[in-house]
């Protein structure tokens, strides 16, 4: 493959969803076939290109697309192991979620607008994953905010608009802080490429104050999207969005963009060394630990399935932040692998919640009694996700927690182990009753609203196949990611590869 073609690949990956998205905007509502075709063609092209890049990168090829942007900061799209991990995750989950969304939205109005923004949102996510420096990252980070907003308010009800306002207030405020942080670092050194180990070592002595402020600005700004307490207020409210949007928001797009940004800032901008010297990790660690416990406690109080899942996301994303803030290689492996694992498990859980809502109009936990008898496959997927969140082996979540625990011991922060155990117990406390209800509760004589989607009989025809297939697919992936963690193809193996370069001496 010639280098020019190779260098265009990152751009093509962004365009593979951007262009179909723009065309979809122009389609009429009734051009359903063409819209579905464009969506799926975009997904397939993106998956193929991602596959090519993964093979290429493991053979030592580099992919790097550069255009001039602002003075001292080009717009760079490039691939390293970390960005590929995120691109891979978002491509796979986009595939599943597109299918799910086509089934979910069925005959509802404004689907062209929905799928248009949906594609823009994924384009922004992969762009953000492949951004090669802070300035490019900032660009896609802001675009992501703008692309997700119409999805959050898609229903257009007063409730949705209220959630949309809150969402914007939080994310644009956070975005402004990120902008300030990026600009501050840019004045100090320009915006060089992300490098493992960071590029600010030389400045620590000279500008400790400026660097500290930049770190605080960046992490606070990114923390809004990563939903670190007390910046998490938008996330539970954003639950009014349609289920595929919530799934995407929680698993890859918004929340992960914040977590991914924090990983980039800590490892590839500042570097573990300067963060330690400036003593910036400890407050972040405390914030993450507090978030894990607080959000789990809030989850215990919820009565709606989606709200419960939202607080669970707040808590689970902070596992990633915790792993990053521990600043040790093993903990970092745990953080990176949890980025993928949490995505797979949480997307499964949201699909399940969507299935319950669409098929039986079950939104509240108390209506879930005996739902396993009516929708056994969905409930099985829900069980896999929930047990994974608690950290039961061999599901993916266990692997992340294991590495996080080991990592905490490695750097001598033993108290973190207590937090992990406590949060795990709390997870069990809010998920196990739900599982109990679902499997062993007495099914009601009539469901709140049985729509008979897909046939309406338990088993393969328990709901529309387009809702069921993605659910089972991601549930299987969460299981496989845990079972096959020891092999070379797992997210864990990839995370270890990334960490090997990040912590190289």
């Amino acid at each position, binding site marked *: 493959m010639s280098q020019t073609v190779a260098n265009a690949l990152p751009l093509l990956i962004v365009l593979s969803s951007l262009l179909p998205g723009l065309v979809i905007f122009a389609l009429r509502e009734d051009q359903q076939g063409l819209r579905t075709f464009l969506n799926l063609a975009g997904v397939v092209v993106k998956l193929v290109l991602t596959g090519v890049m993964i093979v290429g990168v493991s053979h030592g090829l580099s992919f790097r697309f550069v255009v001039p942007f*602002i003075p001292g900061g080009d717009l760079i799209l490039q691939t390293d192991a970390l960005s590929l991990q995120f691109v891979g995750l978002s491509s796979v989950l986009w595939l599943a979620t597109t299918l799910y969304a086509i089934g979910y939205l069925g005959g509802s109005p404004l689907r062209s607008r929905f799928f248009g923004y949906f594609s823009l949102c994924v384009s922004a996510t992969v762009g953000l994953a492949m951004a090669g420096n802070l300035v490019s990252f900032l*660009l896609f980070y802001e675009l992501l905010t703008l692309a997700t907003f119409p999805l959050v*308010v898609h229903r*257009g009800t007063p409730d949705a608009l209220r959630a949309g306002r809150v969402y914007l207030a939080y994310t644009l405020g956070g975005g*402004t802080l990120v*902008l*300030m942080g990026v600009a501050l670092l*840019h004045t100090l050194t320009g915006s060089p490429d992300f490098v493992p180990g960071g590029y600010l070592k030389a400045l620590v002595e000279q500008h400790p104050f400026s660097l500290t402020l930049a770190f605080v600005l960046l992490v606070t700004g990114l923390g809004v999207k990563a939903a670190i307490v007390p910046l998490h207020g938008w996330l539970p409210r954003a639950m009014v969005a349609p289920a595929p949007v919530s799934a995407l928001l929680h698993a890859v797009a918004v929340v992960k963009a914040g977590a991914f940004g924090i990983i980039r800032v800590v490892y590839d901008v500042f570097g573990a060394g300067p963060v330690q010297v400036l003593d910036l990790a400890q407050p972040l660690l405390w914030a993450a630990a507090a978030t894990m416990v607080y959000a789990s406690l809030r989850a215990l109080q919820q009565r709606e399935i989606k709200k419960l899942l939202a607080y669970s996301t707040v808590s689970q994303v902070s596992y990633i932040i915790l792993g990053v803030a521990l600043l040790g290689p093993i903990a970092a492996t745990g953080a990176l692998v949890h980025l993928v694992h949490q995505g797979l498990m949480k997307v499964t859980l949201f699909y399940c919640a969507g299935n319950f809502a669409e098929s039986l109009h079950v939104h509240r936990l108390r209506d879930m009694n005996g739902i396993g008898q009516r929708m056994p496959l969905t409930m099985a997927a829900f069980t896999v996700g929930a047990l994974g969140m608690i950290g039961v082996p061999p599901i993916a979540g266990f692997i992340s927690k294991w590495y996080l625990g080991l990592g905490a011991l490695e750097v001598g922060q033993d108290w973190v182990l207590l937090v992990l155990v406590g949060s795990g117990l709390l997870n069990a406390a809010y998920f196990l009753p739900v599982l109990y209800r679902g499997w062993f509760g007495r099914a009601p004589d009539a469901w709140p609203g049985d729509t008979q989607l897909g046939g309406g009989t338990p088993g393969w025809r328990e709901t529309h196949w387009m809702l069921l297939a993605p659910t089972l697919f991601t549930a299987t992936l969460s299981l496989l990611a845990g079972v096959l963690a020891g092999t070379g193809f797992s997210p864990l193996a990839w995370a270890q590869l990334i960490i090997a370069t990040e912590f190289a001496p």
Partner: protein
Amino acid sequence: MTLALISLLTPLAMALLLLLSRSRSGWWVMGSSLVSLIAALGALHGVIQDGAQWMHLGGWDAPLAIRFRLMPVSALLLVFTALIHLLVSVYAERSRHSQTQRTDYWPLSSLLHASLAALWLSHDLFNWYITLELLGLVAVAMVTISGAKAYVPALRYLLLSLVASLFYLLGVVLLYGHYGVLDLALLADAAKADPTTRLALALMTLGLMLKAAFWPLHLWLPPAHASAPTAVSALLSALVVKGPLFILWLLWSELAPAELGQEAGPVIAVAGVLALIFGGWSALRAPYLKTLVAYSTVAQLGYAMMALGLLLHWQRPELHVALWLFVLAHGLAKVSMFLAAGEMQATLGSKSVGVLKGATQTMPIAMFAFAVAGGSLIGLPPSGGFLAKWVLLRPLLLEPAHWPWAAGVLIGTLMSAGYVFRVVVLSFDRAHPTRPDHRPDLFAQWLALLPALLVWGMALISDPLILWLTGGAP
């Protein structure tokens, strides 16, 4: 220089032609704007290649002559003026809601174009007085096109504009009496920081700030801009308030002794921060759509004031770039916003902001234009507003002592996000959408989107833009 003169004389000739022939056809004006645009592009190319050029009107030499100067900034502004006139004239002719077909809009807008071009090229104080006067009178006449409801704001605009011109003229007379010349370059050589110069500069600055609607002298702007026909509002916000700003910039960066600039700078910059805050606040609470957009002009001028004030205070040349980037980005974004707002309020049948409920469904393209242009006002990447803010932030962040100014920019960003998204969120309301009174006009909506797209991608051509603007720093 010849090309720059063509760019100036074409609209002037067109204005006279239309007045004499009593024709009110828009096609002629579009043609002349296009010629002017092409000539301006040629002038820009020439000035980048060969550097600044002079022209002596009437062939006299320095102290007697009236001189025109073409520098990269003025060439860029010529292009900008012609481009916006072209866009707006297409809208004014083609849109069903423009209220300007077959009116006096056409000769007046040509005259406005010519006086702005003359302003960008002039280089002496009295010439500027003439162009300012012309600009003010033409602008007032254009506001009155929308009929009796605009008479009161137009009259107020006229009176304030005349008072402002008077202040400016007093300053000019003082300087002429003191130094005996009017040419800016000659004055710059002679100027000393004595009481007469101070007084003259203070008077001229007051007059110009009033004309440029700098906070707190902005009160005439929102009613005048909001009551004018849509095409006129776009021209007024995008171009007319930038004329006095140009003079102010040259007065202070070339004529005024540096120590005076250092004293006056912080005052102007603080007024800029206050403009961002109070202008933004008024926009947040404005009941009518066009008033909201007009108040956002007041707020956005705050960025330009900050750039100008800090430029004077620190004498840092990169702030010139920030200042003119703000002007260009704001101009394009405002054209888009006013055209979109005008289309939406005419189609949906009310002037109030609330009428936009459900506008993403009923008028998706106009609403998209409004949102994209709003993104530039907020300063989201990769828009022109972002680029300008980025260049402005650089010197602010360099030293911890300057960080409070950066906080001002931060507040400005949040305020503008507030008023832009106040409108955008409303437009997603599907529960109670406003039904359009007429079939939405697609062409006009796309026309509104065009400048928004231009400004949206402006950071991607930042390299040449900044090069041209730095070439123009005096």
